[in-house]
């Protein structure tokens, strides 16, 4: 958070020293883009907070911990795709899973789908790239994440 804040602040100062009117135009452009995307953003936040309430971390751990074979990997892939969990929750969760005996392949699949596939953010992504491309990117990421998980399981 802090790096972004300082970069934005320094850019603002430098930009307004160089050209005041251009800076105002830029900030106005940014604010307009932000307001355009705000409702979609808020809708996703609502969905995510309801989801995270219904499926808390302990429940995820119980589901993932059951089996590290095919079933475990499928559950990991599905959960990782649907959930939208920030890193500061998902990594400690993954570490706990690892300690309780869940395989590296399941963890890798869960982490990778979590990072690359976002079913909940699909409407937002579609606003920028179109629904077809958004779905395609997510589907390809899903397959890619499973391959990554299998490879990680083989090596580790």
């Amino acid at each position: 958070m802090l790096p972004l804040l300082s970069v934005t602040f320094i850019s603002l100062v430098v930009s307004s020293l160089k050209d005041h009117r251009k800076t105002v135009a830029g900030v106005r452009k940014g604010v307009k883009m932000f307001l355009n995307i705000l409702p979609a953003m808020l809708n996703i936040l609502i969905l995510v907070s309801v989801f995270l309430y219904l499926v808390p971390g302990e429940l995820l751990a119980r589901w993932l911990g059951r089996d590290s074979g095919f079933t475990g990997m499928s559950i990991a892939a599905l959960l990782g795709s649907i959930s939208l969990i920030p890193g500061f929750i998902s990594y400690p969760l993954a570490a706990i899973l690892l300690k309780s005996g869940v395989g590296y392949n399941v963890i890798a699949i869960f982490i990778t789908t979590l990072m690359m596939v976002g079913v909940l953010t699909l409407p937002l992504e579609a606003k920028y790239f179109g629904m077809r491309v958004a779905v395609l990117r997510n589907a390809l990421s899903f397959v890619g994440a499973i391959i990554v998980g299998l490879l990680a399981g083989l090596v580790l």
Partner: protein
Amino acid sequence: MRKYIAWIAESEYILVVLFGLVLLVSRLVNLSFTAGVSHNFWMFFIEMVTFLPFMFILIGLIDVWFPREKVEKHIGQDTGIKGTAWVILLAMFQAGPLYGAFPVAHLLWKKGSSIRNIFIYLGAFATMKLPMLTFEIGFLGWKFSLLRTIFTLPMFILMAWLIIVQEIFLEVWMVGPPSGTWFRVAVFLFVRSNRYLEQKDIGYCFLRRHYDL
């Protein structure tokens, strides 16, 4: 009153208004089950509010200051492996959730980045952000992180390629005569030059349809 209700129902804010009402009512009658939801919501809301406006201001400034030619020169069409390296490096120094990367990717595209590099940017942003990697190493060990990164990197480069191939094929298929489609796409992919496509073939690139956000 009726006018306002109609306006809200038609706008994109309907879910937000309903959510607010539910929270308000459940607080008034002391229902406890929404407390968890609202706690989560404020947590995410604060995360979003403290970083997105700054990011969008930065995007606006970049939009005003960086000329198209410069972006095009570094990460545009035919910049090859060097352009890819630039875009990955750029993504690694970012922070925040993936949905924050979509507007940046869109801006890069608007400034003339190649479509392949845009999807590589998204892939690298999702999996190779430095702040996140340090976190991952801390919890899961450097061996896991290193291997996962090594496996994911070629994966999303390949993915970007597949998306492009699919797009080109679809566009050519839709406008061209079906008989020559395979041939023209194959030639295009091999020689990597637009010369082998008819003008109308590439006139409909998918991102162009979403130019005006």
